[in-house]
């Protein structure tokens, strides 16, 4: 009988296994390099080839104890405890999650363990009371935020030619609360180890931060109780729960999905759930069993983007509004996006810098909301 089990186990070990997705492999390598950079700077005293593991451990413990003591003694140390590391007002910021997913300017994202935040040229962001400047790299380890204030390689201090004229001024103070940068423009972030993107689909001309005309679809705000997105005002309060209205569209070169949604009253947070497929229709996004791309404290003030691995043909998204106790308050409709890369003959720039912002189209042609049905 044991022989039978052993044979079955051996069969399981011989099962054909598809290779890792090249996009995943590349993303993970880039992420490891980013982590390596911060680790190297944070731990310069590690000696190579040291055989005494106990000595290393002892040294690490001692260094850790000293670090903790310093942390409590010096409030402005590089590693500070953050109860809920939350990224806000990101401009030209990339967040690499532990699974290799890369999000661009995800406003309101609660940074999960292992996430690496990189600020590109002309960019800025805030995590708690920490203001990040161009070139800064922040990592979340064991619930704490570690920030490396280093200028990015190859970036001339004081501005670069790639920086948009509308880019937000660099914050002068890193620790004091500075006026919130207005994300009026997004310069392309150039990740290390990958070629610089030739197109700048994310550049948006200056636009008002809040809707200025009643006919315009309201942008999501950070207020917990915004007006219903499209419904006309009703004379009496209605007991129905307003579900988040999810909007998503595909951007190409590189393939990314641009996402935003409206607020649901009484929602304490929002989980963005994603499913994807490389062959045929993507499965229905599920919560909490499905892949949760991120949990956000509020709907992003401006749409953020996340990258789609090569070969994915369909992506489905859903936003789940959560109560403070984590229970589901409302779910958005499921948005299905077909990924059809443009033909090579077509211009590589999907959105001209002078054309209206991509979010101006209320219903993207590639998005097809599907009733979730619960």
């Amino acid at each position, binding site marked *: 009988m044991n022989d039978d089990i052993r044979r079955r186990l051996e069969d399981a070990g011989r099962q054909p296994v598809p290779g890792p997705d090249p996009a995943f492999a590349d993303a993970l390598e880039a992420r490891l390099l980013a982590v390596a950079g911060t680790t190297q700077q944070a731990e310069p005293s590690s000696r190579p080839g040291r*055989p005494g593991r106990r000595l290393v451990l002892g040294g690490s413990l001692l260094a850790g104890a000293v670090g903790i003591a310093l942390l409590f003694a010096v409030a402005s140390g590089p590693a500070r405890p953050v109860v809920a590391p939350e990224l806000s007002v990101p401009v030209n910021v990339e967040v690499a999650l532990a699974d290799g997913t890369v999000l661009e300017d995800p406003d309101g994202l609660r940074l999960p363990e292992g996430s690496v935040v990189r600020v590109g040229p002309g960019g800025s962001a805030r995590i708690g009371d920490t203001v990040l400047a161009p070139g800064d790299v922040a990592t979340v380890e064991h619930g704490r935020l570690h920030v490396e204030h280093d200028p990015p390689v190859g970036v001339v201090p004081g501005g670069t030619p790639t920086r948009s004229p509308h880019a937000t001024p660099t914050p002068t103070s890193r620790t004091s609360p500075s006026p919130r940068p207005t994300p009026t423009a997004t310069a392309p972030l150039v990740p290390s180890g990958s070629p610089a993107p030739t197109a700048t689909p994310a550049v948006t001309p200056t636009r008002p931060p809040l809707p200025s005309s009643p006919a315009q679809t309201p942008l999501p705000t950070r207020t917990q109780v915004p007006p219903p997105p499209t419904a006309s005002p009703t004379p009496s309060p209605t007991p129905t729960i307003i579900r988040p209205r999810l909007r998503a569209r595909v951007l190409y070169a590189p393939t990314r999905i641009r996402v935003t949604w409206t607020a649901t009253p009484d929602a304490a947070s929002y989980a963005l759930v994603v499913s994807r497929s490389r062959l045929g229709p993507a499965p229905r996004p599920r919560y909490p069993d499905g892949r949760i791309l991120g949990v956000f404290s509020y709907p992003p003030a401006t749409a953020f983007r996340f990258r789609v691995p090569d070969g994915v043909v369909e992506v489905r998204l859903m936003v789940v509004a959560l109560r403070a106790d984590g229970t589901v308050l409302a779910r958005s409709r499921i948005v299905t996006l077909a990924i059809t890369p443009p033909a090579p003959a077509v211009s590589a720039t999907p959105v001209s810098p002078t054309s209206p912002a991509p979010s101006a189209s209320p219903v993207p042609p590639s998005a097809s909301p599907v009733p979730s049905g619960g």
Partner: protein
Amino acid sequence: MDEHPDAERDERVLVEQARVDPSAFAELYRRYLPRVYAFAYRRTGAAEVAEDITSATFERALRNLGAFSWRPGGFGPWLFRIAANELVDHYRRSVRAGSPRAEDAARRLQAQAAPDPADEVGARDAVAGLLAAMDELSPRYQQALALRYLSGLTPDEAARALGTSKATMAVVVHRATRALRRALTVADER
């Protein structure tokens, strides 16, 4: 990991380089990525979970490289031990998330694994059942069986990855196999 002394020496040099220059870790990463991913995929049957496990494994390895001391067999068994720990953590979390539903989800994931010809469906289901039953075992038994049968390591390497001698590994695998048989019997009776 590598049977050739030259390859092992080369790998040792790489590890030493990676200690002082973590960017050298990229070479080790490229060398081991397919095997670690395959190990995670065989155990979980789901590409997305395998990607998560692979990411966590390499990141943990990178962060703990300073504590790694070179042993015969090299870097691989150490890396696979991290992967095995990550797998155990993953299943522990799944159980915590709600056992029956997690089990169902896991079975569904197994069923969705790589599109195979119809005549392989029976074999795939059998493997899925076997892997699901493995979730019921103790972490050490899970690690032992996964490292011995699903990692592609030799028995020697699997023993090193588990941190035991070859003889002890054989005993642990034997007991784990017996426990797995009991778990399968219980599952069949349900």
